[in-house]
């Protein structure tokens, strides 16, 4: 008995060891071939959607752009097919296009031109109106009516069948619409709004975010559902899902679902399995009638009647994975290639490349707490340059899972403790000193030195990241923001300190006794706009808190809040706050962006804003934003000569020459791919990366590049072309080019960049604590002295730790 027990014990221990260490095995040989993508150069215009034609040609259109036909050779035919804008159209919401170029669109009326429509609008009737334009360009109003169609219904999705019949979907049903007389026939009810409609022979497939509906157009009846597709739609529709069939003329008869929920079982990857299939759709696309679906996780194929949905291209290794864009249309080409149109004027062709390994042999892990578009873009670029590498970009607090910052940091630290460190970490909102001190971060002096020696990067900005105790650099910001004020020159000219800002505000209040001085609906907004230029001054050389400076800060911002509040009664401010939240709901970053926050404030009913404090957050667009804000400000003040009245300049708080570091990148000491990580860092610091990002995606809040030549290139680019890239409809007709930065301004900006040597990094414990207490100080709950002491108490515990 004893012996048997001992044997059993040994067996259990062996089993445990095997479970703990794994069984090992021979290294798997990776098969070759996978889908890659290439960008398609689109004709001029800002396009959002594509209508694919069966011969491989397609129509491009945007909600405010003319319909453009692109033939099989990729030649744009411009206005070959007619699309006439109607003067009465205010906003077009939804558009449908047929293979022959007929189109239908929904719009809301420009009510001030039409008394009848104005009356409708005032009565709260916000129905869409519809127009149909046939392939010859003949336009007619479409007035949907018929049995089962309620007048108040808005049609949100349109699709033309291969025969030219128009189908439309509302939030709750799908209809057939007679374009001649507007008669509507209700076909079937849906659970949610149908987003996509495709045709395969007589069968129409309409899909919402959780269910696929099959309708036999010849028989006029709804067919049985398909749980495989339903499950797939439920789990893959977030972020947009588009569909296309391999052959629109083949009548699909087999709709039976042979195995509910087998998508997972059959190995339909959900993004975790990276390109394992390596399937070339061209091999058998002509033989099998298939449905293709493109979404963020990849491109999928479903053979009609089957129980398996197969991933044929991985989102992570193609443009599909870009979270900044959503796919808006998919086209299946005869040669096994695909075209995917994305919102935001972007199209790619996906082709099968036999020279690429089906699954990358190496993996580079990039981590950031929050989604960072620039970093994601860099990953895609890096992957294109290194086809054998998968760049896995992970975010600790992605929008879907509502993880708090603390939880995200704990998860990261657990990984570090387990030896699973990412290769690259974006250190925004993280404690760089702590991570560097614990040996998590690699020193970057070696990588950065050549850039500094050749004067490529702004040395002052890089040096601002040098850690005082170790005298080494462990992370580097790719972008920075610079503090700027905007307003009437007399208020802030020669501004040197926080007290000067207070004095300027007092002067402005004397001149304008009512309304706001700053754009700060809430106390927190005053802190948002002033803490960055003061916080670096609150820490003494020994690392302790300078309570006197903090007290002085609270005194100054309290006074600013008092001056600002003197122009309102309590009800007035409350109404302002409500209006601000209801109509604009600006984020903290919006509030800190000098280029955009005036646009919020200027459009409100609570009078003018006489001073703006904030940060220049983009080079070209930001400077333009300043100019536009200047014009708006002057217009509000009814002053014609802008430069004499409204101006802008750098401002300092308690610290001078502050820059706000953004996209701070560090490399992990224990990363598995140190060489690749270094190459990735070099790519981040390269001119094409910094410049291309701006030309491709000129968006707010991204920052001014720390590379001198890139910043210069961005400021020097052809403004007209850039305006078109940004979607300005008529670059010569509107005055935007007047607002581009002048040569003098560019030189001023370069000088500011050269002078910036005091780094502000958001998200530190001190900032969080000072903001929380600061709100209480501004609301009158604490005196400035009490507030400073409270911060000191809390920081004392933190220091003790």
């Amino acid at each position, binding site marked *: 008995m004893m012996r048997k027990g001992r044997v059993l014990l040994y067996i259990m221990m062996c089993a445990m060891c095997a479970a703990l260490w794994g069984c090992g095995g021979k290294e798997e040989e990776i098969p070759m071939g996978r889908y890659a993508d290439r960008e398609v150069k689109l004709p001029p215009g800002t396009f959002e959607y594509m209508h694919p034609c069966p011969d491989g040609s397609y129509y491009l259109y945007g909600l405010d752009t003319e319909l453009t036909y692109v033939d099989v050779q990729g030649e744009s035919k411009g206005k070959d097919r007619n699309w006439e804008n109607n003067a009465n159209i205010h906003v077009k919401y939804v558009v449908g296009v047929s293979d022959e170029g007929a189109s239908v669109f929904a719009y809301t009326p420009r009510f001030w031109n039409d008394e009848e429509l104005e009356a409708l609008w005032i009565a709260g009737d916000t129905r869409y109106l519809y127009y149909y334009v046939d392939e010859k360009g003949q336009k007619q109003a479409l007035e949907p009516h018929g049995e089962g169609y309620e007048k108040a219904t808005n049609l949100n999705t349109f699709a033309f069948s291969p025969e030219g019949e128009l189908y439309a979907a509302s939030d709750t049903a799908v209809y057939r619409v007679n374009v001649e007389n507007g008669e509507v026939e209700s076909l079937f009810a849906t659970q949610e709004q149908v987003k996509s409609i495709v045709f395969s022979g007589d069968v129409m497939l309409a899909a919402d975010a959780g269910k696929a509906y099959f309708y036999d157009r010849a028989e006029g009846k709804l067919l049985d559902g398909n749980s495989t597709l339903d499950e797939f739609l439920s789990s893959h529709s977030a972020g947009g899902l588009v569909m296309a069939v391999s052959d629109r003329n083949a009548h699909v008869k087999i709709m039976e679902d042979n195995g509910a929920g087998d998508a997972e079982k059959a190995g339909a990857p959900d993004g975790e399995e990276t390109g394992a299939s390596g399937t070339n759709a061209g091999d058998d696309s002509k033989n099998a009638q298939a449905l293709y679906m493109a979404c963020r996780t990849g491109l999928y194929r479903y053979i009609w009647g089957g129980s398996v949905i197969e991933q044929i291209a991985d989102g992570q290794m193609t443009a599909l994975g870009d979270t900044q864009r959503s796919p808006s249309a998919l086209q299946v080409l005869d040669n096994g290639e695909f075209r995917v149109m994305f919102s935001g004027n972007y199209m790619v062709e996906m082709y099968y490349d036999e020279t690429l390994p089906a699954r990358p042999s190496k993996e580079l892990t990039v981590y950031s707490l929050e989604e960072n578009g620039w970093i994601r873009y860099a990953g895609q670029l890096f992957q294109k340059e290194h086809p054998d590498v998968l760049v896995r970009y992970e975010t600790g607090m992605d929008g879907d899972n509502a993880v708090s910052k603390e939880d995200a940091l*704990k998860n990261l630290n657990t990984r570090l403790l387990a030896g699973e460190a990412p290769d690259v970490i974006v250190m925004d909102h993280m404690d760089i000193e702590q991570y560097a001190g*614990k040996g998590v971060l690699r020193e970057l002096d070696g990588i950065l030195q050549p850039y500094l020696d050749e004067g490529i990067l702004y040395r002052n900005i890089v040096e601002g990241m040098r850690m005082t105790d170790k005298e080494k650099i462990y992370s580097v910001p790719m972008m920075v923001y610079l503090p700027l004020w905007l307003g009437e020159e007399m208020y802030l000219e020669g501004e040197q300190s926080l007290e000067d800002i207070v004095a300027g505000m007092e002067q402005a209040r004397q001149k304008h006794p009512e309304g706001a001085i700053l754009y700060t609906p809430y106390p927190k907004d005053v802190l948002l706009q002033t803490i960055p230029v003061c916080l670096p001054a609150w820490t003494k050389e020994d690392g302790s808190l300078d309570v006197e400076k903090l007290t002085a800060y609270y005194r100054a911002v309290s006074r600013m809040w008092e001056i600002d509040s003197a122009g309102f009664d309590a009800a007035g401010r409350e109404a302002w706050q409500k209006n601000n939240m209801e109509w604009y709901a600006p984020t903290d970053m919006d509030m800190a962006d000098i280029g955009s926050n005036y646009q919020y404030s200027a459009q409100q009913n609570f009078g003018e804003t006489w001073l703006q404090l904030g940060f220049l957050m983009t080079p070209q667009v930001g400077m333009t934003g300043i100019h536009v804000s200047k014009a708006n400000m002057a217009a509000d003040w009814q002053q014609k000569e802008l430069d004499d009245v409204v101006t802008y300049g750098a401002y300092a708080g308690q610290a001078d020459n502050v820059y706000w570091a953004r996209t701070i990148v560090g490399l992990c000491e224990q990363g598995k791919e140190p060489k690749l990580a270094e190459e990735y860092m070099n790519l981040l610091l390269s001119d094409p990366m910094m410049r291309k990002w701006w030309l491709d995606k000129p968006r707010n809040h991204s920052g001014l590049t720390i590379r001198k030549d890139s910043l210069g290139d961005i400021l020097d680019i052809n403004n007209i072309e850039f305006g078109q890239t940004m979607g300005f409809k008529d670059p010569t007709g509107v005055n935007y080019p007047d607002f581009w930065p002048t040569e003098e301004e560019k030189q001023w900006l370069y000088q500011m960049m050269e002078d910036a040597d005091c780094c502000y990094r958001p998200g530190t414990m001190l900032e969080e604590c000072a903001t929380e207490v600061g709100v209480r100080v501004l609301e009158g709950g604490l005196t400035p002295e009490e507030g400073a002491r409270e911060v000191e108490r809390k920081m004392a*515990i933190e220091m003790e730790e």
Partner: protein
Amino acid sequence: MFLLPGLAGVMLFYLLPFLEVVRRSFLQSGNSAFVGIDNYRAVWENGAFVLAVRNTFLYMAVGVPLLMGSSLLLSLLLRNLRLRRRLVSAMLLPMAVPAAVMVLTLQILIDRQGVINGVLTKAAEQIMVIPAFEAIDYLNTEWALVVVVCSFLWKNTGYMVILWLAGLAALPKEVEEAAQVDGANRWQNWHYIIRPGLSGSFFTIGMLSVLQIFKSYREVWMVAGSYPQEHIYFLQHLLQNWYLKLEFDRMAALTVIMSLVLLVVCLCLQKRLEQREENF
């Protein structure tokens, strides 16, 4: 043999990880160099540790006796009541309240502009005729510990009452009845019969109360964050903040110290209990 699977589970999921923690307490986090007892020394000399230990023991010293005493008193009062079951069910409600709701309620009550300050201000003006009652910011003053203890009692009393009632139900009725026949008064009944009979429950409820003290950290953190007012800065705050700061070595040392202290406390209590049972 029957113990083997359970023992293996304990070994794998408790003992081995704890041994790993002990090992790490002698290493430096980051480079894993052996540092002897430096981590223990660093913990011992850490000002935040001293503050956290002091506050945790104060919280325990106040909270546990108050919880045990109040719940025992209530159970004795409820013991012979007809509505006992319904009342006990009602007392259990706080346990079913989600932490987030509890925190929100607390904030509504104790905020500077909250209900309690509002009531006190009104009372001061109208009843006591003291015009200048100054609103108290309870969570940011020394009142913070009082708030935490009150919320701890509110949440856990009902559960402890049930445990005491179970202990009381297990006492033999005959002994009490015989004592009453012999002329024992209520105090003598309590002192010589009920109290010794509840000594087993006393140990269990005491341990559970101590554990509830540690568990109540979640609500404290949700109300006051990682760096609360200094009177409610507990050991869990310290551990959590060290985790965020990658101070794994100190965390390991602190965990070992805490485990040893708890072990000693448990052993002492058990020994005391055994002695009492022998005497009884």
